[in-house]
């Protein structure tokens, strides 16, 4: 099969590394070759962060290119739009509706583009927007936003629900498994 790409983006500190760890585990369990490219260092300090996941029979580059991503998983509204060019035709954006103002907006140098997701929808992009923060809090922790979004990804993805649940058990610390599985279920069933 041709190599496929998934993008996970958000604001530094939101927990994108755990999301890619879970996705990586699911894909490895399925027997795919996989590469995951992460961002460490300076951009973790509240900057825009992006993680690339590529999987297939044989993966060379760890970087997802323009027009290649099947999915963009975004932890913050405008971060989805920032990386929209990576989405392939027919790809899906799954995004948290949370708004986090970047510093240029805080200082008044720029305005927050409230309606940017509608703009993408109008251009034919499938956008699944959800209040993942509220669902994460319902599951027991605001930190589970990442797992809620992965639940919604699983709904659109070709790997069975049970395999994700199993992978959560392999990925997070034992004391957090139940909470994260609940968060995953809430994300999966959102919109039903």
């Amino acid at each position, binding site marked *: 099969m041709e190599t496929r790409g998934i993008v996970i983006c958000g604001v530094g500190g939101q927990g994108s590394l755990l999301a890619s760890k879970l996705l990586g585990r699911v894909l*490895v369990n399925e027997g795919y070759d*996989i590469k995951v490219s992460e961002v460490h260092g300076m951009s973790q300090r509240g900057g*825009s962060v992006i993680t690339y996941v590529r999987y297939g029979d044989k993966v*060379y*580059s760890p*970087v997802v290119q323009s027009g290649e991503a099947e999915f963009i998983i975004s932890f913050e509204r*405008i971060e989805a739009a920032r990386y929209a060019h990576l989405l392939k035709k027919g790809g899906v954006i799954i995004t948290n509706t949370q708004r986090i103002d970047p*510093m240029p907006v805080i*200082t008044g*140098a720029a305005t927050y583009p409230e309606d940017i997701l509608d703009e993408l929808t109008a251009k034919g992009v499938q956008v699944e927007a959800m209040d993942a923060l509220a669902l994460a809090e319902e599951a027991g922790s605001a930190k589970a936003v990442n797992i809620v979004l992965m639940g919604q990804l699983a709904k659109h993805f070709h790997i069975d629900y049970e395999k994700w649940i199993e992978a959560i058990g392999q990925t997070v610390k034992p004391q957090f498994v139940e909470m994260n599985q609940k968060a995953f279920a809430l994300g999966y069933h959102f919109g039903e």
Partner: protein
Amino acid sequence: MNKKELMIGNAAVARGLYEAGVEVISSYPGTPSTEITEFAATYDDIYCEWAPNEKVAMETAFGASLRGVRAACAMKHVGLNVAADPLFTLSYTGVTGGLVVCVADDPGMHSSQNEQDSRHYAIAAKVPMLEPADSAECKAFAKAAFEISEQFDTPCLLRMCTRIAHAQSVVELEDRVIPEKKPYEKNPQKFIMAPANAIRRHPFVEERMQKLTALAETTPLNRLEEGGTEIGIIATGSCYQYCKEVFGDSVTILKLGMVNPLPVQKIRDLAAKVQKLYVVEELDGVIESHCKNIGVEVIGKEMFTPLGEYSQKSIAAAFGLPEKETVTADTAVPMRPPVMCSGCPHRGLFYVLAKNKLTVLGDIGCYTLGSAAPLCALDSTLCMGASISGLHGYNKAAGDETADKTVCVIGDSTFMHSGMTGLANVAYNGSKSTVIILDNSITGMTGHQQNPTTGYNIKGDPATKIDLESLCHALGINRVRVVDPYDLEATEKAVKEELAADEASVIISRRPCVLLKYVKPKKPVTVNKDKCRSCKRCMKLGCPSIHMDTDGKAGIDKTLCVGCGVCEQLCPFDAIESGE
């Protein structure tokens, strides 16, 4: 079957060091190299430490090698500048136990102050350098580097780059094998590099390079992947992956795993086989120059930029291949640069410096973010430690006329790294400089590593804690005082008094990093909307928790605010109220 794991390149290097039987690792943290030593420290069988700087780290590794065990150190590209002194002469002494120096370049400057290409060091110091292209190779090459180090009696460099260091791919785990420890034998001709001995070692170095070049012709580290002969490509590391992504098996690729010294015959043979030969290498045209030196015609930097990171997209574009269709929004998405965290202790200090319109020489660390709007509190950032020495020179240039309106800022870890010597110079050569040490009790930007001032070692065990106040006194500074940067009034008083003093002084701005686990956040502050008059004074802090609400009044992001209370002190109308 051996266990397979998904690992970032740095973790795979650590695994390789473990399997190679390394017994001592000494490093200084620096993105993108830090995780090599952090992961290595998770193996109880390896002695690991954070050294105060890269030079100390490399010399420690040298000592362990001298004693007969395998040793390593890891650093970022600019760290190798600091450790260049031991490296160049280690090339002459060679090793007893294998010695591997891991160095991580940062094309694209994700987290660095320059984009230097560390391959130049391998050439200049006349030592071998390997460069892996994925995590499996990171592990394998770390082990191969020790074989080369011991066989050729040389330190061996292992070159990483951000995209390999921080990308996960599958690694097959093997067992740790510890080579027999070599007995220590005194050997002054080899290890005392006084002129008489060094003169005899230099020919050895030159002969070694010839032997290593012969190795480059035959080693499986350099692999020819035959495909179409219309296009031939020489590539290393991440560039190899991008080329494979673009061309698959349709071109012939010479994949170089050993990037110094470079093969000669292998390249000539390839050139004879293909119609056009390209060199795809990030940063400088090192391989390209080599090809041209040996009379092989190649296309390199005239087609591929020396700037930043490559990708399959940039390579496809350079070859004029079509791009994939994309969709973008027409509205611009505002930039989201990194910022100092909510509750960052540096913020209060920088606010005071900006308010007093001081000239501020900066250093390397999280506090470089103080240069961003709205604080714009920095005037320079050069390299580790340069703030103090730079301030001294700045003040000397103006006969100390500037000393009452100029300060420098340097973190606790950076001060231990290379600020101490600058402070000794301030005292010894007598400038009236005011030095501010931002002591947040951790090495922050690289992700919380311990250092000699924190009282803990790399394993988190208690360690000797160096007392900054005593140290500054010992370095000849009489005026040393401590302030809490959350207290704006006290901080401003301290800064004004020390600037006015007729001698050099040190202000230690002390408050632990808000991200440290033991720092418990307070309840978020709240805005009393009746009292807020929209003056925006609080916005001058550049705190990510504070914004202007749609009603025109200040608002607080409760998910981010840690209740540090600095904004409360700023509000002239007492509209910001403590959450406690």
